[in-house]
Structures are given as C-alpha cells and as structure tokens.
C-alpha cells in the first residue's frame, strides 16, 4: 500500500469542489455577485464610491464581529440567542462608566456634581472600553456555565439570558438612555475616516472599529485552524461523545467557547456604542442575534455543529449588509427589503446544500 501522496490525494471529481478553498471562493463569488448587482443598478456609480465601500464595512462591522464568536459557538454545536442583549449590555456599560459622576459638597454649601471623565480624561475611556468588553465576556461565561453545568439546550439557556441581560442593561441604565458627559475617542471608533477632515483620523485609512474587526477575525480564524482549542471546538460540534472519548475536556471547551463568544460580542458592543452616536441605549441591538446567526449560516455554518468558517461568516455579514444598503439606495420600500433578505437567507442555504450534494 502506498502513501497517499499529494498527487493522488487530489481527485478532481470530488475533492476539488469540496475543498475549503473552493468553498471560500464560492462564497466570495456570491458576495461579488451581490455587490455587482447593486453596483450596476444604483444610479451614477454611487455604490462603488470609496465612501460607500467604507460604509459597507462600517455598517457590517457590528454583525461581523459578533458573528466571529457565533461562528465558534455554532461550530461547537451550540447557539447564542443572547448576543443582541449582550451588545446592549456592553453599550450601556461603556456609557455608564463614561458618565459616572458623584456629588461632593461644593464651595457655597451647595452640592456639586463631579464627573469622573473630568478627573481622568485619559484613563476613563480605557476603563470604559475594558469594562464594556468584560461585561460581555462575563455574560458569555454565564451562558457557558449554565449550558454546561445544568446540561441544558443552549437555545433555552440563551433565550433566558436574552431576557436577563436585556433586563440588566435596562436596570443599569435605569430604563433610559445614558448620555455620557463628554464625547471621547470611543464615540469616534466607527466614524468614517476616508472622508474625514481630521488628518489624524485619515491616517487610520479605515475606521478603528473596522481594524478591530479585521484583527479579531484573523485571530479567530487562526484559533479555529491552528490551535488545539479550535480542533476541540470542531470535534465537539461534530460528535460530542467522540470528543469526550478522546479526552477532550468537553465542558471546559464549551465554557471557553461561549466566553470567547462574549469577548467578540463585547467588541461588537463597542462598535455599536460608537455607531449609535456614543449613547448608552439599553434597547439597542434588539433582534441582532437573528442577523448574526443568519450571517454565520449564509457563511456556511451548520446549526447541527461541526461546520462553519470565519471567512464565510464575515462574508455572510457583508452580504446581508450590502443587501440592506443596496435595497435602501435603490429606494426599495422597506417591505421589499425585508422580503428579499428573508429569501436570500433561504437561498443561501439551498445553494450550499446543492453544492454539497453535487460533491457526494
């Protein structure tokens, strides 16, 4: 018996089409097709101006970043319905810290309000950033230990925490929007840079939030592909029993996965904070979980676990965003947009299934 060398490990009939590269190229082609569709149809070439390209990135960044974590969770055979609430929780936390103030006795016996941001103008945004991310990390961790510790279906757990986290966000904000006292650079995280008048921001080329997305996506992809953790995530999603038999610490890996999901969702929360103009709105990001899940699925993730890719999910988020933006810029009525997006979600999965069928 010969070693399966490279030459014979490459059969054109089947392997080529199901190789990850071809799959990725296929998804990319879909993205390009959707883009070209609007590029041609939107009048005056407005759809492919640098400004609009930047907008596509900016508008898809929140979904895409949250989709990174969701990809891992879905590959591991789970699901997280609480991402929308977690984003809101992060948004509110950031605003709450930026707006933190307390009363001191003032000069003429009056009470004076002191804002922490005035005391620590440099440090506080960083604290807010860290806290905003950490709160989601913690939320993800709670999802993880609940799923693992109580051995419950993630759908139910995260349906529950969806309510809980949203409630906490509202509680923290005292059921209103928080308007931080001062704008900080956190508010500008998602500002367009290409067309900015400020040379400092221009130098970034892309908005800092988009850079965060890019780096996070690369890290996530590397983790999935080149680390033990990534292997374990795939193994658990493919067959949890096998993973357990092979000595994979299933519970721990799941907890880590949900916690990582929280991390990425926290980053998405920072972006959302900036995107809605630097306010702490506890009703923000309602129903985002559906877009995020849709992005992962369009990107090739399987709700049965064991399948999915970071690149695919990012492309999925871009496709959804382009559809929305294109629909808006074409002046399609809102209802047409919603209907079309719904159809595209189904179509994406159908095409994926057909492709997979063709190769078996």
């Amino acid at each position, binding site marked *: 018996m010969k070693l399966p060398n490279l030459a014979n490990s490459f059969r054109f009939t089947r392997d080529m089409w199901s190789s990850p590269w071809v799959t990725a190229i296929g998804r990319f082609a879909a993205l390009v097709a959707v883009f070209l569709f609007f590029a041609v149809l939107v009048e005056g070439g*407005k759809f492919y101006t640098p*400004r609009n390209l*930047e*907008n596509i990135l900016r508008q898809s960044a929140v979904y895409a970043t949250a989709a990174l974590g969701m990809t891992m969770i879905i590959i591991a055979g789970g699901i997280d319905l609480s991402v929308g609430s977690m984003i809101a929780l992060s948004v509110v936390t950031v605003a709450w810290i930026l707006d933190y*103030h307390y009363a001191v006795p003032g000069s003429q016996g009056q009470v004076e*309000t002191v804002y922490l941001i005035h005391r620590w103008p440099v440090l506080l945004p960083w604290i807010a950033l860290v806290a905003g991310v950490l709160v989601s990390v913690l939320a993800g961790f709670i999802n993880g230990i609940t799923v693992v510790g109580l051995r419950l279906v993630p759908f139910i757990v995260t349906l529950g925490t969806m309510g809980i986290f949203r409630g906490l966000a*509202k509680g923290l904000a*005292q*059921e*209103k*929007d928080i*308007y931080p006292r001062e704008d900080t650079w956190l508010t500008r995280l998602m*500002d*367009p840079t*290409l*067309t*900015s008048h400020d040379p400092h921001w221009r130098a970034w080329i892309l908005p800092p939030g988009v850079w965060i997305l890019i780096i996070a996506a690369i890290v996530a992809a590397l983790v999935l592909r080149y680390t033990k953790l990534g292997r374990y995530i795939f193994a658990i999603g493919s067959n949890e029993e096998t993973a357990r038999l092979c000595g994979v610490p299933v519970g721990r890996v799941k907890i880590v996965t949900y916690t990582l999901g929280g991390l990425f969702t926290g980053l998405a929360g920072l972006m959302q904070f900036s995107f*809605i*103009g630097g*306010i702490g*709105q*506890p*009703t*923000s990001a*309602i129903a985002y979980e559906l877009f995020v899940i849709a992005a992962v699925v369009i990107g090739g993730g399987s709700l049965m676990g064991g399948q999915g890719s970071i690149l695919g999910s990012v492309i999925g988020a871009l496709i959804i965003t382009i559809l929305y933006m294109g629909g*808006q*810029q074409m*002046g399609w009525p*809102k209802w047409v947009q919603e209907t079309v997006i719904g159809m595209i979600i189904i179509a994406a999965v159908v095409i994926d299934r057909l492709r997979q069928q063709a190769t078996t």
Partner: protein
Amino acid sequence: RPPERAASQAKSDQGKKLVIAVIPKSTGGEFWKTVEMGAREAAEELGVEMKWDGPLTETELAEQNKIVENMVTLQVDGIALAPLNRSAQRRTVERAVEAGIPVVIFDSEIDGHAHVSFVATNNKQGGSLGAQHMIELLGGRGRVLVLRFVQGTGSTEARAEGFIETARAGGLEIVADPYPEDATVEGCKKTATNVLEGFVKANELALDGIFACNDRSTLGMLAALEDLRKSGVKVHARFIGFDFTPRLIEALQAGLIDALIAQNPRKMGRLAVETLVAYLRGQQVPEYIDTGVVLVTREKLATDPAVRQLVGLSEKPAGNQGEPSSADK
C-alpha cells in the same frame, strides 16, 4: 365625559390615600423620564401614591392595553394615560371608565369622550411654530423634508400636520414625509439615512430644510446628518427638531440644529397628575389643558432665562454653563 359620579365618589374616598396609575407611551428615553419626574413631584406634593409603567417602545399597542387592564384590576383610583394610538385605544379607555376608573389623557390625543381631561401640548400649533420659523429661515422658498414618528399617534401626527399645512401655505415644498422604521433612535437614524441618501446629488444634500417630530426622530436625524457631514457631503439644510435632550441642546449650541420646538414634559407630567387628583377629589377640571410650547433658538438659549430653565440649563452664571440639572441622579 362622565360627570356627576366623581364628586360623590370623592367623598367616600376621603381619608384614604389615593392610588393613581400613570402610563406613558414607553418607559425609555429622556422625554418620558422628564414626564415621570414631574408626575412624581406632583404625586408627592398631593400625597397620592403613583404607579408608573409603560411598554418598551412606542409601537407595542397590545402591551400598553395590557398595562391599562392590569391597572384596572388593581382598582387604582384613576389613570393618566398617554395613548399610543388615538383610534385603536378608544375602547381601552372606555372600558376602564366603564369599570369606574376615571382617565386623564395626556401628551397624545385620543378619540372619544370617555376621558376626563386632556393635558398636552398644542401639538398642531407646535408644528406650525416650526414651520413659521422654517419659512423665516428659508425666506419663503425651499424643499423641505419631514421625518414623522409612529403612525396613528396623536401627538406627532398633529405636529407633522401642523408643520406641513403652515409650510405649504408659506410657500415651502414638502418633498417627503416618511415614517421611521421603528420607534427607536436607531430606527429613526436608519430611515433618515436611507431617505437622505436619495437627496445626495454631487456630494451635496439637495434639501433646504428638515423637520423632525419628537426627541427620537430628531436624534436619529441628527445622527444621520452627522454621518453625512463626516463622509464629506455638504449639508446646508436648516434643521428644526422637536423636544430637547442634553444631546440636542448641545447640538443646538453647536449649530448643528437651528431650532428646537420645546414642550414642557415636566409640567405635562405634573399637570396630568394634578388634574387627575383634582377630579378625584371632586373638583371641576377643564376639558383641555395646554402645557405650552416654545420655539428655542441658539440666541434664546443663551439669553432667555425662562427657556434656560425649561431645558434644564443651570441658572448660574457663565462658569458652570452647560450643566444639566441631572435631576434623575
């Protein structure tokens, strides 16, 4: 308008602490927080117990109906309601009244005559106030966009109507008057962004004026305009908004907004409670109470003490300028 029985009932209630429910259109947002503040102050002063509950956003009719019903169940002595929909909730109110609970309507009008009194801004007048200022600013000519709010809602619909009527009469052209996607700032911003995009021609926003109907829609429009500016589109449209929040006041000071039509939410909350309690205590109450509306411009903001007080800018001299009253903390 249920007449006599209030007086007789009032007597039997004497001695017992009155319990009233105040039901806003939503529990989120600056506007309603300020209303709550006024209502609470009044309730405290009058020595009545107040329950405050409302739906999450201003589209959830079923939710608000349930809250009204639950307050009826609790047999509160009276209800002050800001109805989400003027026609659909007529029966909700009638049923509460049938159950023996008088209702004061505030903020937004409702159809029918079951309620005791209506405490609100003259919204139509508020709209035309905005239009008059817009006509002045544009010199009687121009293309104007109106961002509405939730459909079927008494208050904002009247404002849009008032604005559009007066603006048209004054020679302005209304080029669009869309409803936002939903009742959140985000929803307003998304719709504003889409609609504005349609008016961008050659890197310029081809609009002369913009009017928005309440705090959420003004905030959303403001954010959308800021995005446009930041992405290099020239915006010379005059922007008049409705309501005030700290952010909107800042924007007004910074010149991003030309004027705000300010209602008096605190007074509205206060008067709603006062009217209800007065009625419950057997006093005569007017059918309609106007809580007042004023045009706030940058100059007035700097100089008019009444205006400064209304929007919560401190009365203290320059040094502390910009400090909101932050009464919620």
